[in-house]
């Protein structure tokens, strides 16, 4: 594990405060999408398929900060679209840092070097660039439908590290990924010197009989077991080891859709980052009026049956850590020994 102690403590004390206050539903990471515009057009990306007037729109910094204050999560992830295309990204990040929020700026890194050279950001323990990397050069360039993106991202990572910024990577892995190549990719990222990596299976949704759902989950567990088997000590993951164990199938969790709420130009998205089943005007309305029982594996909702994505299950893993001594002990053991 590579999450800095101060960040762990901020999250731990927040969760403990929520539990002591008797809250059962509370957010951990706000997914803040200031815009849907992007400078790539990856096939299958559901974020960029909108009419022109929607792609031109973006939230104001004040709207973003209003959402951050309203929801109160200790961590803010800024995906997109491409957040480096947001005209006020520098001001937004510095306001979040001033509020002591841990910020993950999720970027394809094409504009990162230019923005760093322009002095848009200051290094801070609160700011981490989370670079979208879907594998080694061949896999990544194929995933983003453009050659040369992997090399540009690597160059940007080097530049950000040289300037003293925290840098992590985020990787989506699909059925059919090659475990050996993925392990080589982990080595390559650690060689670059990133602080840690985040991995998640891609979202999959298919109308299928129960048996097929079971097999899809089983295949995902096998894939992650092969990728993470005997993990190298030098691999650092910027996420809960319990979530990684869940991916490997050695632990079962239920989804916590309110754990990573999403806010964008349409409002608070129901019920999660992946599904768009409507919008609430306020965070309170989202929490109070979403029919949460309709989501997650147990609900039987076809759209949730195969989902093992981090935005639904990582909050469960984090909550589990603080829900019992056993969860806490398991997290500490995996963190200290590096074994999964």
């Amino acid at each position, binding site marked *: 594990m590579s999450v800095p102690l101060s960040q762990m403590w901020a999250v731990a004390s927040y969760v403990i405060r929520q539990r002591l206050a008797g809250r059962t539903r509370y957010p951990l990471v706000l997914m803040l999408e200031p815009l849907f515009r992007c400078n790539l057009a990856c096939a299958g990306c559901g974020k960029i*398929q909108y009419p022109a*007037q929607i792609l031109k729109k973006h939230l104001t910094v004040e709207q973003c900060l209003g959402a951050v204050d309203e929801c109160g999560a200790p961590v803010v992830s800024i995906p997109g679209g491409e957040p480096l295309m947001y005209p006020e990204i520098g001001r937004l990040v510095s306001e979040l840092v001033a509020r002591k929020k841990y910020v993950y700026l999720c970027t394809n890194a094409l504009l990162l070097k230019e923005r760093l050279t322009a002095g848009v950001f200051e290094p801070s323990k609160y700011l981490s660039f989370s670079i979208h990397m879907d594998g*080694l050069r061949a896999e990544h360039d194929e995933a983003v439908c453009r050659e040369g993106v992997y090399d540009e991202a690597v160059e940007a990572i080097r530049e950000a590290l040289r300037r003293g910024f925290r840098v992590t990577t985020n990787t989506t892995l*699909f059925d059919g990924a090659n475990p050996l190549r993925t392990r080589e990719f982990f080595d390559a990222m650690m060689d670059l010197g990133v602080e840690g990596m985040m991995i998640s299976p891609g979202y999959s949704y298919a109308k299928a009989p129960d048996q097929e759902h079971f097999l899809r989950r089983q295949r995902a567990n096998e894939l992650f077991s092969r990728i993470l088997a005997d993990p190298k000590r030098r691999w650092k993951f910027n996420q809960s080891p319990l979530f990684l164990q869940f991916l490997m199938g050695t632990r079962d969790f239920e989804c916590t859709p309110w754990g990573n709420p999403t806010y964008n130009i349409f409002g608070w998205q129901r019920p999660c980052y992946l599904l768009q089943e*409507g919008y609430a005007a306020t965070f309170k309305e989202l929490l109070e009026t979403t029919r949460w029982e309709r989501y997650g594996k147990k609900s039987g909702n076809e759209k949730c049956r195969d989902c093992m994505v981090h935005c639904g299950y990582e909050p469960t893993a984090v909550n589990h850590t603080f829900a019992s001594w056993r969860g806490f002990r398991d997290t500490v053991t995996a963190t200290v020994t590096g074994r999964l």
Partner: protein
Amino acid sequence: MSDTESLEGWVPAIGHGVTLEEVVERAFDYRGNVTVVKADGTRLEGYVFNRNRDVAVPFVQVFDRAGAGPLDIPYADIRTILFTGKDTAAGNSYAAWLRAKEASQQRLGTPLPPGA
């Protein structure tokens, strides 16, 4: 609907095998502009990004063609919705993409030269 079928160009006539609620749901899922024809005959072209039926006065929310909004329109004020704008998701469904992606990762599963 299949992965590839698009509603682009659909001119639903409410009451003829389709209800207003169904048309609103389709408009909400549609990744393109639509034209909302109101009961008084006026038209509003834009993107339907939300709808809420679980309230006393059910409504849809729209950003118009110029991006202004959100504009709230009660269901009761809607005669029909025409699927007039380009479907930006047409032929690009998530399910279709996922199948292609999994096939390509399997292809990349064969050994590549070092450094590739």
